[in-house]
């Protein structure tokens, strides 16, 4: 695929996701049964007529098509409305917290990617056999823990939160990478390189990894998306003020505009990362 058609596809995908994602997220939160319910309905002393009147008023606001269109147009302009709890602009709330989340996600993804990839190379290409089994078993255990438990373990042992996010990413990278590497290990040109006496580290660095450029790029994108998902429980459980914590608090307090905005932004971010990491495979010099 040429760079122009790749760019066109990227733009088309982004436009589609922006519109469809906005629509889906808004519909989900506005049409669910709870959209008409508010914690203030539990105020003692409210008569059933008052309750019904309040609900009818909310229904009127929520279901108007014009309101929805205005909401979409606002989103396209970067205006996500105002928090129902604090009255602050949602975009401002997110921008304040974005750097902390970006750091957590970036460093966690990098740690997980490097650890998972290095251990996969070591286990599959350099020390196959027992070390591979031991590393695989360890990562299987790590893969079986929810990100929230990894975060609690990091908090209890006073380790950086970035390590917990990295630990959530690393096993996924390891299993994907080790499968790729095991396939590549049996490729004809690799076997030929082994037969000529080239060492395993050199084979990994010069023969195997460059041939997997496309897959490794996708893996880097996948690491960021996984770290993004792990950041939500990490920030919520540790109390670190980031977008994940904002989402969790807004969910607990039923602040729907904030929730919809955070969901949309994370959706677009993860989609953009996935599309940008979609690098075309390397052309083989030996292709017919």
């Amino acid at each position: 695929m040429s760079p122009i058609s790749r760019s066109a596809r990227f733009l088309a995908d982004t436009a589609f996701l922006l519109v469809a994602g906005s629509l889906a997220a808004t519909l989900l939160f506005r049409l669910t049964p709870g959209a008409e319910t508010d914690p203030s309905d539990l105020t003692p002393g409210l008569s059933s007529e008052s309750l019904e009147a309040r609900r009818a008023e909310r229904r009127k606001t929520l279901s108007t098509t014009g309101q929805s269109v205005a909401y979409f147009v606002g989103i396209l302009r970067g205006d996500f409305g105002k928090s129902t709890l604090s009255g602050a602009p949602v975009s401002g709330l997110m921008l304040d917290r974005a750097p902390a989340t970006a750091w957590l996600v970036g460093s966690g993804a990098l740690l997980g990617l490097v650890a998972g990839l290095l251990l996969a190379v070591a286990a599959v290409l350099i020390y196959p056999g027992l070390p591979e089994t031991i590393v695989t078993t360890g990562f299987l255990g790590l893969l079986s823990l929810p990100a929230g438990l990894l975060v609690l373990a990091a908090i209890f042992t006073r380790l950086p939160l970035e390590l917990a996010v990295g630990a959530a990413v690393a096993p996924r990278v390891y299993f994907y990478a080790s499968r790729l590497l095991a396939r590549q290990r049996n490729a004809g040109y690799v076997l030929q390189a082994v037969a000529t006496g080239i060492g395993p580290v050199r084979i990994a660095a010069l023969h195997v990894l460059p041939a997997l450029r496309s897959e490794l790029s996708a893996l880097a994108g996948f690491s960021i998306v996984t770290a993004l998902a792990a950041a939500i429980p990490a920030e919520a459980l540790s109390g670190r003020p980031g977008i994940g914590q904002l989402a969790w608090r807004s969910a607990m307090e039923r602040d729907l505009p904030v929730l919809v905005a955070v969901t949309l932004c994370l959706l677009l971010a993860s989609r953009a990362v996935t599309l940008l990491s979609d690098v075309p495979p390397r052309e083989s010099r030996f292709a017919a």
Partner: protein
Amino acid sequence: MRVARLAAMAVLAVVLLLSAFPALVTADPSDEQFRNDIDLPPSLRYPLGTDDLGRNRMARLLHGTRTSLLLAPAAAALSVVLACSIGLAAGGGGRIAVRLFESVADLTGSLPWLLMLIGLRAALPLEASPFATTAITFAMLALLGWAGPARVIRNLAANLRERDFTIQARALGQGGWRFSTKHLLPHVWPVAAAQFWINLPVFILVEANLGLLGMGIPEPYASLGNQLRDLESYQSVMNKPWLLAPAVLLTAVVSASWIISLTAEETA
């Protein structure tokens, strides 16, 4: 790998048996509060002690495991059925249908699951019953989980359509639903089963994360996820190491599911 698969199946079978028949271990119901036995350490009657409300932790753990092991597979099965239907339909579609399928699958695959589920829980009515909340949570998981398996099944279906036997069948006039179920589905089935085993541990882990955030299966129901909430206090974990039992059981169940999914993928 065969030994690992057998061991994983044995672990799952034992956990399933104990959670299906909790009376084998303890006769207490999961929600009964023994007001004179609050916050007790492990004993013969209460192998994992009691919680702040005097409920038998072992009974809650076994009932919670049953909830997770009943609903997560049900959601995984539903997502695979959805994936098969959509994947097979898209596999036989034209260029526009394929492009539409890819875009919708990409969109669904990019959705931040945890955030969607948190949002859904927040949007549910305050008076929603625990049963409805639980059912809706797992149904939402099934709706979110179809994209990955559907992509695999679509690619396989598109590939099968180029094979001689399917070309012959279509030349004989077979098409539509009958063609898909009679000629494609038998070949797609092993892959669909592998996708089920891949989704299963993912769903259990998502429910566990939701439970840790306090937005999973609501009380008084027990689940593997909401049993983990007791681990949030460092002091509690240090003073009562038996609180780690749900985490250990969760790790064992999910590890066993992963092993089965890895071997299922290889055989598919």
